[in-house]
Each structure stands twice: as structure tokens, then as C-alpha cells.
């Protein structure tokens, strides 16, 4: 195994434990609609984990080949906004490492959603970067529906990149019931 992959493997282990730790220390109550009176709180009945690894040069190559069509098909305006800087000539300079990590995160989310049929569109999964630097998962459309069907009530994501590799780990807390009430996308919940 190359030193780069060795390092990435240890990074992924750290990512997984960091992501689980964030969930364990969440202060947010988790509410479920299982027919009981509003506000019934249950512990999650299962945990799902998804992981994905992407080569940064693959993302750079796709941008070179397909340009805006590629970027706008896969990434939301927010994601594009957090992964670019202005170059000296005024043209955007893309952080291909950050885009690669976000693509890996989207694929990791699909792994926890486990679609039995069409997968959700990439832009229905947004990796939202908070001002403090944390990233959260926001779901829309079919991704949101799949999460509801799986009883996913909380998602946590952690991203990393090193050299030419980028990776993401996603952990989902699930119950057998559907999440109660409307989705609070501002909190990054499902």
C-alpha cells in the first residue's frame, strides 16, 4: 500500500470516530411520528454508515472536459460558492480537493439512503459549510423522501483530503418511523 493510501486509511478511521462522536454529543432532541402523541422521543434503532473515496485529479479532469455542465449538474450554488476563489484574471479558481470531498460525501449519503431504484440527483444532497467551518448534510427532493422512508432522523458528515485523494464519511441515525413534522433544512436535519 502506498504511503498516501496508508495515510488516507488512518484519516478515514479518525473521520468515522469523529463523526460518531459528534452524533453522540448532539443536544438536539429527536422526534418521531409513530402515532403516539406529539413530542414522543425514542432512541434511534439503527445506525447506517457510508464512505466514499475520490481521486482529486478525476474531478479536475471532468471540469476541464465538461466545464459548467459538470459543475452545475453535480453541485449546488452554495457548494460551488464555497469551493471557488477569484483568480487574478477574474475567472473562478476551483478547489478541486474541496469539490472532490463533496462528491465523495454525496456518494456516501447515497450509501446510507440505500435507494431501491433511481438514486437521488446529486444536487438533492447538499454539503453545507457553516460559517464556523463545519459541514452539514441538507437533503431535498428524492433524497429527502428516501431519508424519510428509511426513518433517518440525523445525518453527520466529515470530509478530508490529502494529496490526490479525498474522502467522506456519513453516519445516519435511523428509526423505523418517519421523522415528525416538516424538515428543518436550516439546521441541516433530514
Amino acid at each position, binding site marked *: 500500500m502506498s504511503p498516501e493510501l496508508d495515510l488516507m486509511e488512518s484519516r478515514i478511521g479518525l473521520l468515522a470516530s469523529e463523526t460518531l462522536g459528534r452524533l453522540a454529543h448532539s443536544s438536539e432532541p429527536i422526534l418521531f411520528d409513530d402515532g403516539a402523541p406529539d413530542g414522543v422521543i425514542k432512541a434511534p434503532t439503527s445506525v447506517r454508515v457510508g464512505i466514499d473515496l475520490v481521486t482529486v485529479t478525476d474531478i479536475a479532469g471532468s471540469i476541464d472536459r465538461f466545464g459548467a455542465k459538470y459543475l452545475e449538474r453535480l453541485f449546488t450554488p452554495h457548494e460551488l460558492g464555497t469551493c471557488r476563489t477569484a483568480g487574478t484574471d477574474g475567472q473562478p479558481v476551483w478547489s478541486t480537493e474541496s469539490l472532490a470531498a463533496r462528491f465523495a460525501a454525496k456518494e456516501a449519503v447515497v450509501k446510507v439512503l440505500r*435507494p431501491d431504484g*433511481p438514486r437521488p440527483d446529486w444536487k438533492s444532497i447538499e454539503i453545507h459549510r457553516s460559517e464556523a467551518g463545519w459541514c452539514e448534510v441538507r437533503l431535498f427532493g428524492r433524497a429527502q423522501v428516501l431519508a424519510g422512508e428509511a426513518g433517518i432522523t440525523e445525518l453527520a458528515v466529515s470530509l478530508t483530503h490529502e494529496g490526490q485523494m479525498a474522502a467522506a464519511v456519513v453516519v445516519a441515525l435511523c428509526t423505523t418511523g418517519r421523522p415528525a413534522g416538516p424538515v428543518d433544512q436550516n439546521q441541516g436535519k433530514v
Partner: protein
Amino acid sequence: MTMDETIRLVLSEHGRLQVDPATLEDATDLFAVGMTSHASVNVMLALEDAFDIEFPETMLKKSTFESIAAIRTSVQQMTEA
């Protein structure tokens, strides 16, 4: 160029396969011969350019891109619609 030839050319340029697409059987599982999920995105975008189509969300599933036969069926559905 026939539809099959175009599909194999797209796979050659974007599929990141471990074998020459020209030698593949129609039913060969492309993911089993090295196509990654990200490579399948490139294949999708290149097919869209080649055939002037756009894959809808309902066709965004692994089975759509899992073989040359599956890709041909999907492209035919969209070009004949």
C-alpha cells in the same frame, strides 16, 4: 458512426475501464471492469453530448450504466421519445 460505436467510444474516453471497450460483450458489467461512480458521471455527460439528450433523475441508477446493452436501451428510449 453507429450508436454502439459511439457508446464504446464514450466508454473508451471516460469509463476508466481496465479493458478495451471494443472487446466487451454487450452484457458485461462495466462496474465489474473498473468503472467508478465518478467515471459513470463522465460517461453520462459524454453520452448527453454525443446524443443531444439529458438523463432525467428517474434514470439515475446504477443499472442504467451497468452495461453497453443497458446504456443502448436508455439512449434509445430518450432519442425515440
